[in-house]
C-alpha cells in the first residue's frame, strides 16, 4: 500500500544487476515530452493508465525500441537495451489491433518469432503449436487471421508475443478492439495468462477496469508525466487528480459467485444483475453509492452496509468519502449532500448500491 509519485532517479547505482525492468524513458517530440520512470520485478504486471495523448503508447514504443529515447536508460534483467534495435530485444509486443500477418496462418504467425530468432522450421512450428494449444486454439492453427474472431485473434497475438520467451511483455490496449461481450471472457483469460507469466508485463490502457483487473500496479500518466502510481485499490481510494478521481475511482472486490449473488472474500455478499458461478469480481463506481444517516426503510437496494466515515477528500464540488465497516468502499457525493448528512470522520452511515449499478464478471 505504498504510493510513489516521484520518478526514480536516472542512474541509481546498485540497481543495474537487479532482475526485472528499470527504465527512465525520455522522448521529446516537438511540444510533447514524455518523461517517466518505470521499475518492475519479474512477475509484476504494470498498467500504464491515462487519457488519450498522455504518452502511454509512446512509452510502450520506447520500451519496444520502435521509438528512440531522447534520454534516460532502459535496463532489463541488468542488460542495457537503450541502443539495442527492436529485433534484438527480448521484448514481446501485443499490438492494439494485433497486427497479425494476414497472409500467414495462425500457426505461422506464432512461429514467425522463433523462426526469426534462429529456430528451425519444424522446431518453430512445434513451439507455435504448443502455444496455440495453451491458448485453447489448437483447432485454429491453420486459420488465416481474417477468419478468426476478435477474441481468438487476441489470443494468437498473445501467443505470438509469448512464443519468443520475452523478458518483457508489452500489451497496447489489449482489449480495446473487442466488443463488450467478448471483452469479459478475454479479460478473464488474459488475466490468467498474465498471472502465469514469470517476467515483467507492461500494459497500456485507458480503461480503469481493465487496468485494475489485469495489473498488480497502476502507473497513471498525464501529459507525459507520472501523476500517481500504486496498487489499484489504493489509487481508487486516494485519487490524487481529478482525472484519477473520475476514471480510476472504482470499488472493486473479489469473491465467489453463485447465481445473482457474489460472496466477497472481504465478508458480505453483493447482489448483481449478472448470473455467474465461480470466482468473480464485482465493481461499482463511487458515484453509484447512496449514503443515509439512518437505515433506510422501503429502499429497493438490497446491497446495504453499515459503515463509518474514515476520511473525506474534496475534488471540485465533489467529495469522496472513504468508508470502513462491513465493507470498505469509496462513495462520491456533492458538498451539499455531505453537509446535509453531517459527514465527518468517524460518523456512522448506511451505504446502499443498486444491483443494476454493480458489475460482476468472472475472475
Amino acid at each position: 500500500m505504498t504510493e510513489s509519485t516521484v520518478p526514480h532517479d536516472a542512474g541509481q547505482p546498485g540497481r543495474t544487476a537487479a532482475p526485472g525492468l528499470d527504465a527512465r524513458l525520455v522522448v521529446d517530440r516537438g511540444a510533447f515530452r514524455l518523461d517517466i520512470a518505470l521499475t518492475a520485478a519479474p512477475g509484476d504486471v504494470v498498467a500504464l493508465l491515462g487519457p488519450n495523448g498522455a504518452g502511454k503508447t509512446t512509452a510502450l514504443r520506447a520500451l519496444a525500441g520502435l521509438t528512440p529515447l531522447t534520454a534516460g536508460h532502459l535496463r532489463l534483467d541488468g542488460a542495457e537495451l537503450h541502443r539495442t534495435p527492436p529485433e534484438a530485444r527480448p521484448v514481446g509486443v501485443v499490438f492494439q489491433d494485433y497486427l497479425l500477418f494476414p497472409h500467414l496462418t495462425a500457426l505461422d504467425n506464432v512461429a514467425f518469432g522463433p523462426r526469426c530468432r534462429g529456430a528451425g522450421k519444424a522446431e518453430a512450428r512445434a513451439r507455435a503449436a504448443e502455444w496455440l494449444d495453451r491458448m485453447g486454439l489448437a483447432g485454429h492453427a491453420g486459420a488465416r487471421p481474417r477468419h478468426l474472431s476478435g477474441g481468438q485473434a487476441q489470443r494468437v497475438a498473445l501467443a505470438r508475443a509469448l512464443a519468443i520467451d520475452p523478458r518483457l511483455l508489452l500489451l497496447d490496449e489489449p482489449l480495446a478492439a473487442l466488443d463488450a461481450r467478448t471483452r469479459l471472457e478475454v479479460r478473464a483469460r488474459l488475466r490468467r495468462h498474465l498471472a502465469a507469466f514469470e517476467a515483467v508485463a507492461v500494459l497500456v490502457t485507458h480503461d480503469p477496469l481493465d487496468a485494475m483487473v489485469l495489473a498488480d500496479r497502476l502507473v497513471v500518466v498525464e501529459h507525459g508525466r507520472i501523476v500517481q502510481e500504486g496498487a489499484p485499490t489504493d489509487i481508487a481510494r486516494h485519487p490524487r487528480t481529478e482525472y484519477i478521481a473520475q476514471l480510476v475511482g472504482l470499488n472493486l472486490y473479489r469473491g465467489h459467485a453463485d447465481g445473482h449473488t457474489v460472496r466477497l472474500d472481504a465478508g458480505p455478499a453483493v447482489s448483481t444483475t449478472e448470473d455467474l458461478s465461480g470466482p468473480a469480481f464485482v465493481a461499482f463506481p463511487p458515484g453509484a453509492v447512496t449514503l443515509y444517516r439512518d437505515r433506510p426503510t422501503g429502499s429497493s437496494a438490497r446491497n446495504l452496509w453499515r459503515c463509518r466515515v474514515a476520511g473525506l477528500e474534496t475534488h471540485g464540488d465533489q467529495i469522496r468519502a472513504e468508508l470502513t465497516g462491513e465493507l470498505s468502499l469509496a462513495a462520491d457525493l456533492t458538498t451539499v449532500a455531505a453537509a446535509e448528512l453531517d459527514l465527518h470522520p468517524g460518523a456512522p452511515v448506511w451505504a446502499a448500491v443498486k444491483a443494476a449499478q454493480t458489475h460482476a464478471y468472472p475472475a
Partner: protein
Amino acid sequence: MTSGPAAPRTARPRPPGRGVPLALLAPALLGLAFLLVPLLALLVRAPWRSLPEQLTSPEVWQALRLSLFCATAATALSLVVGVPLAWLLARTEFRGRGLVRALVTLPLVLPPVVGGVALLLALGRNGVVGQYLDAWFGISLPFTTAGVVLAETFVAMPFLVISVEGTLRAADPRFEEAAATLGASRFTAFRRVTLPLIAPGVAAGAVLAWARALGEFGATITFAGNFPGRTQTMPLAVYLALQNDPAAAIALSLVLLAVSVAVLAGLRDRWMRTA
C-alpha cells in the same frame, strides 16, 4: 437478379434516384469510345482475306516469341531492382529523396528514342560504362537481345517503381514494426511480411511494366537495333512493315493486340482480384 427466397418476382428495384449522372456518363462513354474506336478501325481495315497467309510467316512468330521473351525478362529485371528501389523511396528518409523520385520517373517523360541514345552513351561500346564492360569482360550490349531487355527495362521500370511505391505507402508500416519486435531484421521483415502484403500492388506494377515493355519501340530500335530473331520485336516489325506493306503491319498489330489482351485479361483475373 433475385437474391433469396424473399425476393420479389420482378427484378430487384433500384433505389430511387441513384442512376449514373449524365455529367459522368457522357464523358466516360466519350473516353471509352476514344480508346476503342482506333482499335476497332484496325479490326475493320484488317486484311482478313490475306491474314492466314500473313500469320503463317515464320518471321511473325519469331518476332512475337522475341517480344514475349524480352518483355518478360525486362519485367523480371524491373522486379529484381525496382521493388527494392520502391522500398527505399517509400520507407527510408534521406536527403534528396524527392529529387531521386523525380529522376526515377524521368524515363516516363523522356522520348524513348532519347532514352535509347542515352543508353548507347552509357552502355554502348564506347559508352561511359560500356567501354569498361567491353574492355574488361568483352561484353557489348548494343545489337543484342540483352540490349533489347535493357532498353525495355529502362522504359518500363518506372511504371513498376511508381506502382509499388504507392502500394508501399498505403501499406501499414506497423506490420514491419510487429515483425521487428518478433526478431526480424529489416530485410527479413521486408521479405516475409511486406512483400507478401504488397504482392497485389507488385503484380499490378509488373503487369503495367510488362505491357509497356511489350509495346516498346523507340528505345529498343535505337539501342539494340533491328535484326530479325535477335532484336526485332513485334513493334519494330510492325513499324518496318508499315513502310511499304500496311496490310502486313495491321496483321502484325492484331497479333500483338490479341496476345496482350489475352495475357492481361488472364493476369487480371488471377492476380488483381485477390487484391
